[in-house]
């Protein structure tokens, strides 16, 4: 297990940020999701060793989060959400500098800086002043500084924010490459559910300081809801009320597609029976997959 925490609790004064969080994150890319104030940042802070938990214990790559913070920081690469650079520096100096601060010998850090800048696609701009970089280039630069010391685990905080669609695709491609082929585990915190869905095999959803859902995306999708998409002819009001009476969650899209989230223990034939009862014709019926968005809405309790 790359990250293992048990009964982790943390408070900011009277506000409980994390409440008895227990997690085990394995290999590959893991998505960290949650609404604002869910405790994602606090969890990252504790994992990076910035905060000492009030209660509980944990390890990152086998290092204790209370006692071995330096070892954790040496083994983890961190790509923050905000633009961060040092004015007056070029990319090679910047990347090598942070490699050196991670504990690399100076010459090695410089050599390695060239390699990772090539890898993230900044080879042609590596001697340009960082002040002149575009948003996409700064994003790649942050990735380069996170990778320079060859970490075993990458913490990526909103890696695609403020990027145009092409830049977003390129950064996603890069993260996917790192996560799938380079023996580097990735913990990706993002509010863009599609990014997490694209990159991560597992997900952790935090809500109000507690783990609301955790596990492989495939498993979570099929846990307790079946999603059916249908189109009907006739007055749907009574039909929809009937479905809701059967504990189904019903959503209607702008193009009159009805999404029915049915508890897994119920039979889909009940939808047809309800249609028959209320005099509605079902013109289109497809069993669909619940998306991460659905799962998020379900566990966090928002539409």
């Amino acid at each position, binding site marked *: 297990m790359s990250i293992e925490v048990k009964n982790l609790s943390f408070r900011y004064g009277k506000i409980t940020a994390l409440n008895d969080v227990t997690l085990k994150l394995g290999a590959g890319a893991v998505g960290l999701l949650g609404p604002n104030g869910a405790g994602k940042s606090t969890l990252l802070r504790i994992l990076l060793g910035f905060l000492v938990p009030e209660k509980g214990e944990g390890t990152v790559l086998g290092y204790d989060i209370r006692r071995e913070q330096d070892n954790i920081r040496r083994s983890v690469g961190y790509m923050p959400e905000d633009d961060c650079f040092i004015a007056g520096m070029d990319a090679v100096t910047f990347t090598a500098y942070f490699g050196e*601060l991670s*504990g690399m010998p100076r010459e090695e850090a410089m050599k390695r800086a060239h390699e990772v800048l090539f890898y993230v*696609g900044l080879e042609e701009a590596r001697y340009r002043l960082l002040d002149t970089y575009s948003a996409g280039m700064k994003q790649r630069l942050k990735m380069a500084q996170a990778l320079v010391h060859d970490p075993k685990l990458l913490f990526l905080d909103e890696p695609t924010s403020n990027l145009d669609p092409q830049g977003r695709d390129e950064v996603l491609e890069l993260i996917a490459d790192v996560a799938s082929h380079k*023996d580097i585990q990735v913990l990706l915190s993002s509010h863009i559910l599609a990014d997490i869905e694209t990159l991560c095999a597992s997900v952790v959803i935090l809500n109000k300081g507690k783990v609301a859902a955790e596990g492989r995306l495939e498993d979570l999708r099929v846990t307790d809801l079946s999603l059916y998409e249908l189109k009907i002819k006739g007055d749907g009001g009574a039909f929809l009320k009937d479905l809701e009476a059967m504990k189904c969650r019903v959503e209607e899209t702008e193009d009159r597609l009805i999404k029915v989230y049915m508890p897994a223990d119920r039979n889909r034939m009940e939808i047809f029976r309800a249609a028959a009862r209320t005099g509605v014709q079902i013109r289109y019926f497809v069993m669909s997959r619940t998306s991460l968005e659905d799962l998020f809405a379900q566990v966090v309790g928002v539409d």
Partner: protein
Amino acid sequence: MATVREKGYYHWDGRLVERRLPWLPITRTGIMLAFKKRGFRFLFAGAFLPGVVLLAFVYMSENLESFQAMIRSSDRLISVTPGSFKVFFTAPLFLWILMLVFAGSGLVADDLKHNSLQIYFSRPLRKKDYLLGKMAVVFFFILAVTLVPALLVFSFKLIFAGSFKFFLAYPWLLLSIIGFSAFLAVFFAFYTLLLSCLSKNSRYVMVLVFMIYIFSDVLFGILQSIFRTHYMALFSIRANIDQVGALVFAQKPVHPIPVLWSCLVLGGVCALSALVLNRKIRGVEVIR
């Protein structure tokens, strides 16, 4: 923009080491960035001028016969004593402040502006390492223009004299030179970093570093003319440093007030700086 992964990723087969001086790369980078600033090299070279002048005095004092034509009034004018060193350390403060305006203003302010604290502290780096690294930049520049020239002048004095008479006459002077240089370096490091962490705009900090030094002296002048008391010197950074310099080089203080008070004022600035820096420099605030 170039294509992603043209060359491919390779694992690094080296081993990360635990540095004995983890702050050293920060200092080296701070010094390098200062030299990249426009006009700084000129200022840095100019800050050596007092050392060159003192060296010239030393040479002239040891070769009085050659300069008889130039100096007719009194040879006391060019005699080198501990007082000359005190003047060397306290008279060009303005010049050194000017150098710090360029070299030190952005030390913390730029990191705050560009959010780089979070990547510093995601490294195996403590707050004290970060601060020590930044302070050492100021130490470097202050010691380069104070300690190095003063030691050179002291050595040349002995060489030109061809004897240890000067050393034996003032055996404590070498310690005073080292001690007062260290004092200046520490005070200016705290002073510069305190102001540098108060704003994200390094230009604003440049103005602050310069103006607070000047303003404290102007305030002293105004208050002294109103209240007619030397105690108003405690408001002036320059006057307080001058008082401490007088004590260290065994000279009569310009203002007849206890030097301890000046030490307390300057120490207070350092303590305030440590307090503010401790609050402002935090790794946890930057991860949202």
